């Protein structure tokens, strides 16, 4: 089944020079989809939390974090991120590579 972005809303993450969005997806994150990020610049997977957490930093310094089993994730874009790069990340969230 094609995964979709159900909602995208600005997060109140209060950090300098970034724009953070919380995405709600139609399917929860499973390990296979999380592992697609292994090739990114930084990939961390913390299995010790009630739901394992993943944290990714792309070459464009975009941060993606979420929990395995959760439908949500947060993406923090540098404020100068282009629409094209945002689209690339959003496609990755729904697994279109």
């Amino acid at each position, binding site marked *: 089944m094609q995964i979709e972005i159900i909602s995208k809303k600005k997060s109140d993450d*209060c950090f300098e020079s970034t724009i953070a969005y919380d995405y709600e997806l139609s399917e929860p994150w499973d390990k296979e989809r999380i592992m697609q990020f292994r090739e990114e610049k930084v990939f961390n997977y913390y299995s010790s939390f*009630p739901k394992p*957490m993943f944290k990714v930093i792309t070459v464009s310094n975009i941060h993606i974090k979420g929990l395995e089993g959760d439908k949500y994730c947060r993406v923090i874009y540098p404020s100068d991120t282009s629409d094209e790069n945002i689209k690339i990340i959003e496609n990755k969230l729904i697994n279109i590579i």
Partner: protein
Amino acid sequence: MNSSLKVTYLNNAATSWPKPKVVYNGIKTCLCNPPDESLRSNLSSRNDDLLSNTRSILAKFISAPNSDRIFFTYNATYAINQVLFGLDYKKNDLVISSVQEHNAVLRPVLALRKRYGVKLELLPINEFGLIDINKALKLIALKPKVVILSHASNVTGTIQPIAEIFKAAKDVGAITILDAAQTIGIIPFDVKNYFADAIIFTGHKYLLGPTGIAGAYISDNINPSTLLVGGSGILSESETMPELYPTKFEPGTHNFVGVAGLNASIKWLKDNWDPLKAFKWYDEILNLLRCYPVIIINESPLETTPVVSFKIKDWSISDISYILQSSYNIICRSGLHCAPLIHRFLKTGSAGCIRLSPSQFTKSIDIARLSRALDKICKSK
């Protein structure tokens, strides 16, 4: 948020939660009954309507001599803007504030500089978040027009020596404005102790009321112009807002629901106020954090509000916050806390810090949950 877990709420310095049950009931009662305002209906007399009664009990709570000098707004930022921009300025008037300020103060004073060409001086703080009193006294000797300070920083909680600074400011004829959003309701507060011409309060923090209700107490020393004009319920034939306090600052329909909630919370606080409980949890959180490789930003020997700000070695602030909230349902605040300048002095950089702020409703289970989360986080790297 993980919906299968109960919420541990440690963000009371932003908005307190839960509220006393009487607050929920007060709001419900307000919504279920006809609006109660003497100026625009005949349901109650001038002196016992909801607005007058709330002003009266709030005045008693903060020992203000005249409840009519309390006006309500929708938040503290609005009240600060009303007072600050209601004053007259000339180019090169000196305005003094500090680097600890929340943007609720900082942005308005920066806007004053841009709009009127006032000179703005921001007092530095030391490593404990305390304003440099010597620097303050030196600048005050230059006879500022306005000195506006927060009673306590929302990041460090450090209680500032307001009486000493404002006394000096009054001695040279300055107008003194105190943002007490972080202190009223959590430390004993008597308006007469601070030499303040205006005191800003908010209902939704330690006064335990709902959001959307705040305001200011204005002393007889100043008479700011009103920023917004509109319906007042009295003197409707006049082309201008009535000069009558507090009506001149309250155009339009009041937030009755917010006032009702605040009324209930202040009455509850009168009999149940117990800030020591919040400080007990503050001490427990500090003791807990000391067990981990954590940098406590605001550990100091000074008097503070019950807020603990910290960083964890090798973890980004954003990630800690995300884990606490998403994995453990621990509601806290992270980042710059809308106080961008203070982080330069606290060496917390552009990422800021995590802030935990308990209340008297915090429970031991909340601290146990926090302990479990910190344990996992600190052992994960």
